[in-house]
């Protein structure tokens, strides 16, 4: 795999991780409007990064949550444990 694959993936993993943390935090702090605002900002950023990644390396999500404009790349390697 090329270097760019790992770089783009890592960027997405970092933003997604912040979203996981904020999500669990908001589950017990639903009244924290600052955290909610940060969550929504990060959700937008992740959409942008995920779209960029999918453009280069194919769909991230199954069942139509990612479109597959360049042939059926979903079922093609590499799978996460192979890289």
């Amino acid at each position: 795999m090329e270097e760019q694959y790992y770089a783009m993936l890592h960027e997405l993993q970092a933003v997604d991780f912040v979203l996981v943390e904020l999500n669990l935090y908001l589950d017990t702090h639903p009244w924290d409007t600052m955290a909610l605002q940060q969550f929504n900002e990060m959700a937008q950023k992740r959409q942008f990064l995920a779209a960029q990644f999918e453009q280069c390396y194919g769909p991230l999500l199954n069942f139509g949550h990612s479109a597959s404009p360049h042939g059926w790349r979903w079922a093609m390697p590499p799978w996460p444990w192979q890289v």
Partner: protein
Amino acid sequence: MNQFRVYCPFIGPFDPCPPIREKVYSTPPNLFLGFQPPGLPQFNAHEALKLGTLWPALYSPYPGKQT
């Protein structure tokens, strides 16, 4: 805060192995934080991923067994 505690186990006169005099156990910050207050300082996204939490107040380093 120091995230480890130490105790000294009893050393019996007939213990067959050379004694480990101090035993260390982990006391991570979730034991002390209480209900997390809003607005705590955060790591940036890459640090957070690397360390496994968004908040320094919940970060618990594990350097490996001391003994």
